[in-house]
Every structure is written in structure tokens, then in C-alpha cells.
């Protein structure tokens, strides 16, 4: 029986391998523009791995990951803006009446500091937030809604402190990254492969985590946090840790995103983008690491496809996918094969995939 588990793992490994090879090869057949798009999707794919740890495995739904994604993106954005203005005051600061750079702008001028800060700052914020929130047993729906409140706070602050953040315009107009021209296709390809590399590394690290006893504990938290607490685990610390890890991953994703898109603005981190991120996880298959990755890439490709061809229909489509996936395919695309097979052979096992997530 144990081989079931083993086989299951093997199949995912093959799928991962196929995906990675495909992603390595695609830049050779696609135009620069498409490669750049794909690179953005990969940044999103990195983000959803963290979200999946948090929601898919541990059952904690955060609608506030836009914040961490945004923090990473803004930190990298500030760095790139500093490179572009070579230490001078960006235009929006001038017309906002600023006379010198705020301290954190100066600090982020250094590339190493910027990269580290892009990951660590979201993590620090997540630790503080998570520590109080999870210690105080703010659970389920309450946590989810609380994260929405935090998104509102963040977005409002970003917009109203436009003298240091660029306001609704966000940060844009970058020229170089670590000295390399951002508009050069070669630079973009390097960034693409760096993103892919980050994705693979994070995927591997997380799958190790998931397959350890720690991973079991996460699933146990989803199934019955209180039961686990009565087994002697300090579950809130587990939650804080996973929340923090996912925040760090989101920060990294944000940094990679901004390098490829060349702009970060508050609309990218609001409530709606934060919910969309969750959809990518749901479509791919929560509780499987590879599923959300595929989900993120597929959904964003679909978004591009539809809004290029049928802009009016995109919202109908997106809405319908939300409803259909949640109601009929809670296991996402990864459960599709299982589901089809069950229908065909009418298997006896009552493993209704809905049951998997009844607790979530």
C-alpha cells in the first residue's frame, strides 16, 4: 500500500520535470514579448506556491498576499528607480515638494540590500502580524476578513503617501537593473531564467517541507487545529512560520514581477488581485504544489488570450471559472484525471474530493 504514496509522488515528479523542460525550451520558440509575458506568469507561479502552503495545506486563507507581493515589488521598484535616476530625486517627489530622498530610498540603492529587503521585509511584517493574530486565535473567516482590512490600509497608505510612493501612478520608468539595460531582450531572457530557477528551487524546498513531519502537521492543522493543539503542538507558531514563509515567497515573486513588467502600482496589490491569486491556486489544485503553479500559468495565459481577443467576455469567463472550480472541482485541475476516472469506472471508494476541503 505504501507504494501508492510513492507512485503518487513519482508522477508529480515527472509532471514537474516535463513542465520545467517545457519552460526551459519555450523561449527558443516564442517572441521576446511572449517570453516576457511567460516570465510574469512564472513570477505569479512562485507566489502561489507560498499561498498554497498557507491555504492548500494549512487551510488558512489570506486575502492579503497582495501586500507582501507589493512590498517586494515596491522595494525592487524603488531600487530600479534609484538606478534610473542615478541617486537623484524622482519626478513625483519633486512635484510633491520633497527636497531630499527618504532614508529607505537611500538604503535601497544598494542592490544586495534591495534584494534581501524584498524578501525579509515582507517576512518581518508577516511575523509581527501572524504572531499576534494567530496567538489571539483569530481563525478562519475572521483571519481572512482581517487580511482584507490590512489590504485596504496598505493601499490607502500607498496612495495617500504619494510623496514617497508615487501614489496611484506607482513606480515606473526604470532603465537598468544592476547595470544591465531592462529593455534589452537578452537581459529579459536572463531574468526569465532566473525566475524559472527561483520557481524550481522554491518548489523543491516546499515539496521537501511538505513531505516531512512538518508537512503532516500543516495538514493536521487544516483538518483540526484544536485536535493538534491537544496533541501537544503549539499550532499558532506553525501558522506564524508558514505565513512568514509564504510572505517571503510573495516578496520574492513581487521583485521578479517588477523586473519584468517595469511598473508597480497600488492596483496590482488591492483586494481584487489578492483574490485572483487565490483563484490560481484553486484552479490548479490546492494542496498540490505543482497544481497551483500550472494554475497560475494557465489562468494568466487565458486572461491574456481572452483580453486580447474578447475583452468583454473575460470577466464572465473569470467569474464562471471561480464558481465552477469551487463547486464542481474543489481539487482543481490536478483532481481532474482522478475525477474522470472515477466517473468512468464508477469506483466504489467514496472519496468525494469535496470532503478533502470541507474543513477549509
Amino acid at each position, binding site marked *: 500500500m505504501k507504494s501508492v504514496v510513492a507512485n503518487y509522488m513519482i508522477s508529480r515528479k515527472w509532471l514537474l520535470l516535463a513542465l520545467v523542460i517545457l519552460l526551459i525550451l519555450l523561449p527558443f520558440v516564442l517572441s521576446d514579448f511572449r517570453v516576457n509575458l511567460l516570465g510574469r506568469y512564472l513570477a505569479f507561479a512562485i507566489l502561489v506556491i507560498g499561498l498554497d502552503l498557507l491555504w492548500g495545506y494549512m487551510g488558512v*486563507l489570506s486575502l492579503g498576499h497582495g501586500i507582501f507581493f507589493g512590498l517586494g515589488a515596491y522595494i525592487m521598484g524603488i531600487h530600479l528607480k534609484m538606478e534610473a535616476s542615478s541617486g537623484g530625486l524622482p519626478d513625483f517627489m519633486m512635484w510633491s515638494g520633497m527636497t531630499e530622498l527618504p532614508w529607505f530610498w537611500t538604503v535601497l540603492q544598494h542592490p544586495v540590500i534591495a534584494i534581501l529587503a524584498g524578501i525579509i521585509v515582507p517576512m518581518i511584517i508577516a511575523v509581527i502580524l501572524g504572531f*499576534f*493574530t494567530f496567538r*489571539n*486565535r*483569530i*481563525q*478562519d*473567516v*475572521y483571519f*481572512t*476578513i*482581517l487580511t*482584507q*482590512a*490590512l489590504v*485596504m*490600509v496598505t493601499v*490607502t*497608505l500607498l*496612495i*495617500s503617501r504619494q510623496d514617497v510612493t508615487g501614489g496611484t501612478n506607482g513606480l515606473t520608468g526604470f532603465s537598468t537593473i544592476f547595470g544591465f539595460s531592462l529593455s534589452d531582450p537578452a537581459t529579459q531572457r536572463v531574468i526569465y531564467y532566473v525566475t524559472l530557477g527561483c520557481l524550481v528551487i522554491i518548489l523543491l524546498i516546499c515539496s521537501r517541507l511538505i513531505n516531512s513531519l512538518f508537512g503532516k502537521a500543516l495538514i493536521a492543522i487544516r483538518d*483540526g*487545529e*484544536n*485536535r493538534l493543539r491537544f496533541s501537544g503542538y503549539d499550532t499558532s507558531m506553525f501558522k506564524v512560520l508558514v505565513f512568514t514563509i509564504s510572505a517571503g515567497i510573495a516578496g520574492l515573486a513581487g521583485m521578479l514581477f517588477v523586473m519584468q513588467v517595469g511598473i508597480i502600482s497600488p492596483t496590482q496589490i488591492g*483586494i*481584487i488581485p489578492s*483574490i485572483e491569486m*487565490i*483563484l490560481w491556486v*484553486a484552479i490548479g489544485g490546492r494542496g498540490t504544489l505543482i497544481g497551483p503553479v500550472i494554475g497560475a500559468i494557465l489562468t494568466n495565459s487565458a486572461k491574456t488570450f481572452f483580453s486580447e481577443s474578447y475583452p*468583454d467576455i473575460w*470577466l*464572465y469567463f*473569470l*467569474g*464562471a*471559472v*471561480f*464558481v465552477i472550480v*469551487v*463547486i464542481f472541482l*474543489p481539487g482543481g485541475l490536478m483532481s481532474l484525471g482522478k475525477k474522470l476516472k472515477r466517473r468512468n469506472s464508477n469506483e466504489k471508494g467514496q472519496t468525494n474530493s469535496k470532503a478533502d*476541503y*470541507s474543513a*477549509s
Partner: protein
Amino acid sequence: MEAILIQAFNGLSLGSILLLIALGLAITFGLMKVINMAHGELIMIGAYTTYVMQTIFTQYMPAGLFDLYFILAIPCAFIVAALVGMLLEYTVIRHLYGRPLDSLLATFGVGLILQQTARSIFGAPNVGIVSPSFLEGGMNVFGMTVPVTRIFIIGLVVVCLLILAFYLYKTNSGRRTRAVMQNREMASCVGISTRRVDITTFAIGAGIAGVAGAILTLIGPIGPAIGTYYIVDAFMVVVVGGVGMLVGTVVSAFGVGVMNTLFEYWTDASMGKVLIFVLIVLFLQWRPSGLFSLRTRSLD
């Protein structure tokens, strides 16, 4: 002194609007544990119903009867939103009882569809509503002039609240509703049709959202995306009040309203908004289940 009095009234007025938008949610979320992200779109439906009523009156009714449109629009908004709510319950929500977070995602999708539908039918730009003449102007209350509209809204909220409380606590079907919400299995054992109760309850919650939409046309824009302005506020009010407690929602709506107005007065609107949300986050740390909550003995 007068400034404080006026701000107090402004707080009360904002509170009444918050209560109106949160009341429907207090039912669907509070009682049924369904996180209905399409609540904002139900508000939008109520607003558009009012617009349609106005159009009908300007085109087919004698001009002298024009003001009546608004009186009629309120029940119509209730009915239309309730019908949409029923449809929503029947097609989507009923699959999702006991899965609150999933209901959040699915209804968010429904919200997107409803928004786009409104955009297709009424066009992307906002539409305009002419307030009925009896709601124009100001009234003298304690020596200050306050808009009649605001008094009307406060009055209407009180009426809605009374009707709802009467329904839930004094009628048979209300009792049945509470029975189902408290213990589904037990209620179905004693012969209550839980399906019917679910669908009625959800329809009532949706209908109240529709009424809120009709009222909001008096003070705000009417467009496909207006639901998004109100939805987060509505959730905050319900959560702070304590899920499942009508009285909690009332207290929290007025509390948030007054605090928000004061913060805005002391700082500015953006900071006011930031402060009120920060306050809510801190408050939840202190009372994770809201102002009023039942202490239960269940494990989860």
C-alpha cells in the same frame, strides 16, 4: 460645541448607512455562515432597480406622480434583489454550506459576472437619479440644519431593523430560521424543511441588500462597480459586531460610523480610513469573535 454635535450626527448618519449595507450580510454571513462577496452586487441590483423605476415613471407616468417612484422603488428593489438572491442560493450557495471560505471565492466569481452583466445592460458609465422632492432640503434638529435625506435614511434603517427583528423573533418562519441556523440536523429532525428555510433566509438577506442599494442612490453613484465600495466595510461591521448577533451589528455599525467620522475630522479622509481599519484589526486581536458573541462549547 456645534461642530461636535454636527460630527455626532454625521457619525450617526454614516453608521446608519453602514448598518443598512451590513444588515443583509449579518443575515447571510452571520446566520448562514456564507461569505457572500456578491453582496455588493446585490446592492448594485437594488440601485439599478431604482433607476429603472425612475425611467419607467418619467416615460409612462404623469409628471405629478414622479416622486412616487422612489416609494415604489424600495419594495421593488427588495423583490428583485431577493429573486436574484434566490437564484444565487439555488445555483451556487447551496453547494457551499459549511465551506465558508469556498463560498467567498464562488460568490466573488458571481459578483464579477453580475458586474459585467450590469455593464452590458446599462453601459459602463454611471446613471443618474433625481431625488424625490420630499427628500430635498434640510430640517432643523436641535438648532442645526440636517439634510432630510439623512433623517429619512436613519428612519428607514430603524424600520428595516424592526421588521427584521420582528420576523426573526416573533414569527413562526423566523423561529424556524433561527432553529435551522443553530442546529441544522436537529431542525430537520423536527420536521423543518431546511432547504426552504435556507433559500428564504438568503433571499431576505439579499433583499435587504437591494433596499440598501435603493437608498444609496440618494447619496452616492450608481454604476456597475459600486458594490466594491461597500463590501469590505460591510464585512468589517459584521465581524466587529460578532457573527450571528443582530444587536452586535447595530452597535458596531454606529460605533464604526462615529469613530470613522471623528478620525476623519481629526485627521483627513485617507488617514481616517486607515485609522478605522487599523482600529478594527487591533480590536479583533482583543476580541477575536467580535463585540457580542455566544460562548459555545464546540471544539471548532
